[in-house]
């Protein structure tokens, strides 16, 4: 059973603004029967203000609650204000959603944008035109994925799936998702970690603490995904001695892992002079 907040349950059992609007001048549709959830959003925009909003939703409890929350949030907003509403606002309005259900809030945001495009007379742009299709099962583009990563500070492929559904079907695109994630995280870390702003001159203690932090936060999770692991054995100035564990020990490309990934990550985040060596057994 999902752990829904009382607010999600309440908006599911008593959804606000259900139905269609006969005098809607903006309609946004996302999702499909086959995907398991779909939302049709009706807006009445007067001048540049949303004076009424209604919805029809096919989907689970959190999809219905997210739609209800969305309509409550945007009623009375100007179009410009509404465009600033993100999926996180919808989730927060509901007191949070289970992480596996975050895609329901994303659906709300997308329907809102589609409706506003419709109102502006822009073509009901298909997502496939906005970027490259990455997940064929659920029709998710690279643009949608990158946006979800940026706006929600996503850190793992699993999180991408929770937010966009991408990778949740046949799983073929998981490698592609990892690449998109790597590119995003390498380019601009979304988290507020002080890693990027590491001071140039570090004391030995500071350096060791930072190395440990990067090992724990960035490096180990990645190796563990492949069944491997790494342990810090010792540090001597900027030389870091590590031991590879798990699958890494028998992996023929462990040298590449050390130089290409571990050393590079530590250089990026800690000190450009870092040298990684494998500790003698």
């Amino acid at each position, binding site marked *: 059973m999902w752990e829904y907040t009382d607010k999600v349950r309440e908006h599911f059992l008593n959804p606000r603004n*259900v139905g269609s609007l006969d005098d809607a001048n903006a309609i946004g549709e996302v999702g499909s029967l086959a995907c398991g959830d779909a939302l049709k959003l009706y807006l009445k925009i007067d001048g540049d203000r949303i004076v009424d909003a209604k919805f029809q939703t096919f*989907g689970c409890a959190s999809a219905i609650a997210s739609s209800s929350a969305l309509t409550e949030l945007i009623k009375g907003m100007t179009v410009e204000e509404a465009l600033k509403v993100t999926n996180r606002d919808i989730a927060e309005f509901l007191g949070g959603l289970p992480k596996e259900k975050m895609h329901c809030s994303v659906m709300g945001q997308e329907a809102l944008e589609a409706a506003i495009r419709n109102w502006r007379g822009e073509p009901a742009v298909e997502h496939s035109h906005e970027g490259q299709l990455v997940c064929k*099962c659920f029709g998710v583009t690279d643009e949608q994925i990158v946006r979800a990563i940026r706006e929600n500070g996503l850190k793992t492929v699993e999180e991408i799936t929770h937010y966009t559904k991408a990778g949740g079907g046949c799983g073929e695109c998981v490698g592609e998702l990892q690449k998109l994630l790597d590119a995003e995280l390498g380019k601009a870390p979304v988290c507020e970690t002080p890693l990027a702003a590491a001071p140039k001159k570090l004391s030995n203690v500071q350096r060791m603490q930072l190395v440990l932090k990067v090992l724990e936060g960035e490096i180990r999770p990645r190796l563990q995904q492949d069944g491997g692991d790494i342990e810090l054995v010792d540090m001597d100035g900027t030389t870091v001695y590590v031991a590879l564990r798990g699958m890494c020990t028998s992996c023929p490309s462990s040298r590449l892992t050390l130089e290409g990934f571990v050393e590079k990550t530590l250089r990026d985040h800690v000190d450009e002079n870092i040298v990684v060596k494998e500790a003698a057994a």
Partner: protein
Amino acid sequence: MNTVYFDNNATTRVDPAVLAAMLPYFSELYGNPSSMHTFGGQVGRAVREAREQVARLIGATPEEIVFTSCGTEGDNTAIRAALAAQPEKKHIITTRVEHPAVLSLSQHLEKNGYELTLLGVDDKGRMNLEELREAIRKDTAIVSIMFANNETGTIFPVAEAAAICKERGVPFHTDAVQAVGKLAIDVRELPVDYLVLSGHKLHAPKGIGALYVRRGAAYRPFLRGGHQERGRRGGTENVPAIIGLGMACNLAAANMAEENTRVRALRDRLEQGLLAAIPDAIVNGDPTNRLPNTTNISFKYVEGEAILLLLDQLGVCASSGSACTSGSLEPSHVLRAMGVPFTYAHGSIRFSLSRFNTQEEVDHVVRELPRVIARLREMSPFRAGSEAEAALGKPACACQGCGS
């Protein structure tokens, strides 16, 4: 209205007589059945009787019964035993609609040096024996075919499939967790090598199961340890649960007729009542060759989790094969293997009854569910004849095979 429990394929209520039989073994009769003293010995005797009771239900001898902790352990033990006994054979055959206890083990083995053939099913969830015959190879180490499907209740031709395998000299395993206690099973007439049952599906507690290993079939312990279960499963016996399973098997034999008459009639009343009251609903599974307690119905244009949560408000417990309830993003692997269109699969609800259910409960659901479906359909952007369907160029087809 109290809880209406229509989710007996998930787990069942412990029969009060089973609980009563177990209780002394939590308190005064706490001895270890392996002990030399009389105090433990009397417990050993009770375990022996329970083994006889389990054996009797399926026509086995007590020596052919190994107590396990659950159905999953039984399935893993049997399949791994067959593989370990024939290390040169690297091919496994099972079906696409198995319980994860078999399916995910098979897929794991596939990643570790085995070749896997997954037999398909038709739109009613039925397998094709010819497909099995053709799939068997010289290096086939095990064939595993469930006795009855947990989601749809469809019964598999296990006797025929096992006979084919016997003829070809291939060990045969069946996950009979959903069938034992509901269908008459006699291993003297059923040429299976391994058969798995689980206590909590037949009114015994959770945490106990049994594996039938035909005398002479290859065996390797999965859990190595002490000499319990004659060295076939290490670990001190879960005595209270074993006593409970024995009693539950006795009761199952006595109640088998009721399962197939009264419970079946309740299931039929529920199914027919719902189909008559709710348009755009179809039954998933084999309408004739089906467990007497199970019905799996899809309601188009609505989503299963939403149905379940509204039923929950009414005290009704059921389950769904929708994506949102499966914990993944895709609907049930069973319904997909059957080719049930996604538009129906997302709105599938399984009701599974037991002898503890009443007609009053059935009538409560037949009265309430149509309102639940109507309420969700009113909220849905899709409905019969809606644009989404018009786009398909033809009206919705009520059959479950054509995909439209």
